């Protein structure tokens, strides 16, 4: 594959500046950036707390967590793919089918529930749908050797089409005990979805960050040849990652049914925001690599921003613009910090 789209170090313009030469300055810069992004996060919280009434309250923080649950689960799924696929967006890890996956899984859940089956069956059907989509991605990428960008793009189209076939482009209402529980409030008056997001993040972080399998994912993503030479089952790990991300799509589908009391169309709109969130997540990690907790932080960062805007009555039109500026600011800072003499 000759088309190389680097995510992090970009096109190097400075002659003779190797990455090793600036390693010392680089880690300092990384620390500065990480601190900087955390400071920015805190600054946003402080500014909104001072300016927006009700912002600084347990209930509101819970709301933000709850509203971020769906995009958070999707972004964490994508993060796992980014970890094992490496930072190269085209040849490496990307899963464009995630948002469509959520839509189809939600439709499957709602349809199964409408046929009168219980929650257990519906949950199993939704997760099975998500897992199958992940399996197709895995077979396409690992088995057939299609680059992930193209493979998941094609799968995205198929899945989005299947969702339309199943729903005939209409809303399928659903109401089950599980959905009622998910859309209710838990302890402290915080939405149940908020707890779901926190528990999901904990489990995902535990697996990805603290198990040998998780460490291997980083090895595969950062240096596949070395990982292969060290005897790691690279193909199986990459396949597993796509299946895991598919399952996340299925899980997000269930959450979205509870959030909207049914399956709705237009899940594809979530794709690019989720990609942004997952990519931004790496600035919240120590080594500027994708991590589960970093992605949670970037999800909440965007969530608080949207929430603060709403409370301040700033037009929602500006949200996507601010998101865009944010990416550019964070990434410019990363890039400029990485080449101290420039």
């Amino acid at each position, binding site marked *: 594959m000759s088309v190389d789209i680097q995510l992090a170090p970009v096109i190097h313009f400075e002659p003779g500046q190797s990455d090793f030469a600036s390693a010392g300055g680089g880690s300092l810069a990384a620390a500065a950036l990480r601190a900087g992004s955390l400071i920015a996060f805190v600054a946003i919280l402080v500014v909104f707390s001072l300016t927006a009434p009700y912002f600084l309250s347990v209930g509101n923080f819970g709301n933000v967590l709850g509203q971020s649950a769906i995009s958070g689960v999707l972004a964490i799924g994508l993060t796992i793919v980014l970890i094992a696929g490496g930072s190269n967006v085209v040849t490496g890890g990307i899963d*464009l089918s995630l948002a469509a996956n959520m839509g189809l899984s939600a439709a499957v859940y709602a349809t199964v529930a409408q046929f009168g089956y219980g929650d257990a069956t519906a949950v199993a059907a939704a997760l099975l749908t998500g897992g199958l989509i992940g399996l197709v991605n895995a077979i396409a990428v690992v088995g057939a050797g299609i680059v992930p960008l193209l493979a998941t793009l094609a799968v995205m189209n198929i899945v989005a089409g299947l969702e339309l076939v199943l729903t005939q482009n209409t809303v399928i209402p659903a109401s089950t005990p599980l959905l009622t529980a998910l859309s209710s409030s838990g302890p402290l008056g915080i939405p149940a979805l908020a707890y779901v997001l926190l528990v999901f993040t904990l489990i995902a972080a535990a697996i990805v960050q603290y198990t040998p399998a998780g460490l291997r994912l980083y090895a595969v993503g950062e240096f596949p040849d070395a990982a292969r030479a060290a005897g790691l089952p690279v193909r199986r790990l990459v396949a597993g990652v796509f299946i895991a991300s598919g399952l996340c799509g299925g899980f997000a589908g269930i959450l979205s049914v509870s959030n909207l009391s049914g399956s709705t169309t237009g899940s594809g709109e979530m794709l690019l925001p989720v990609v942004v969130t997952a990519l931004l997540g790496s600035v919240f990690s120590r080594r500027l690599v994708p991590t589960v907790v970093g992605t949670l932080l970037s999800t909440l960062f965007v969530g608080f921003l949207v929430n603060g805007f709403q409370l301040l009555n700033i037009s929602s039109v500006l949200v*996507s*613009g601010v998101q865009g500026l944010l990416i550019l600011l964070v990434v410019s800072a990363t890039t*400029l910090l990485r080449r101290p003499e420039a």
Partner: protein
Amino acid sequence: MAPQTSSIGTPTLPRLLLGAVVDNALVLALVAVFAVFSIATPTFPTLANLQSILVNNFTLLAIVAVAMTFAVSVGGIDLSVGTAVDFASFAFVSLVLSGQPVAIAALAGLGAGAAVGAFNALLISGIGISPFLATLGTLFIGRSIQQLLTNGGNPVYLPPSGVPEAFRFLARGAIAGIPVPLVIAAVIVAGATLILTRARFGRVALAIGIQPSVARYSGITARAHVAVAFILVGLIAAVAGLILSATVTVYIPSSGNAFLLNAIGATFIGTTLSRLGRPNIPGTVLGVLLLGIVANGLLLTGLNFYWQQVGTGLLIFAVLALSFINRRKATA
């Protein structure tokens, strides 16, 4: 993917055949899809339908995909092609609506598209942000700007009486019997092919895309070339914006994003299925044709509209899978 000097010793006949199949995977896929639809629906291979494919399923996407090919050739990607399409369309439609001459409005539209490209160029060549992230940022900011300009996303309509003749000509006119949009697309395809294969700029751009470090050590001014490539992307995408708004006589905010994923698909199908695995305009055009033929053919089979999308996805998936599997066999 580097060209494979296939095997040691004299290649056997099946190996040669397999190599030929891999080298021409895209053309073979097109022929196969064409044959299948010709058998399935008698109306497919008629002259009228083939012309309709070119006009309805080909021109706009071809122009946007050619634009995308320039971004990919310098080793980048442009997620904001749709933004350039939209900005051009907005400037064009609003200026025509305010009574400006069509030529001036069209120039302003091209300028608006080029401005989106210049913004990307600034981020990528000036600051050094990776193209994927830079253009993702542009896409989001562009969406906000369009909503601000249109009071939250209201379309800008041209009343049927207020459509100037030149405006109509851009979409519905014909030169020597060939529809104007098709002529424009052909000129852009030919020009882009020349630039990428014959001009010094194109070769340098491809060299940067293939091996940035070598380009750097050869003293190539990568910054400038990458910047020009991204401005070209915006400019070419703007042409699609002009034709689009002349066709539908309305500007709808963020409608250009509909082209994004198909343009990426066509460009990368053309890149990965070509002999050298490099971005190339003929490959991109064949990729667009493949998508167009599949869309049109499925429509003619009378399949339920929702199933058509599934069918398109499945066919593209099958083409990709077959060619990647064959390539793997040929290079094994």
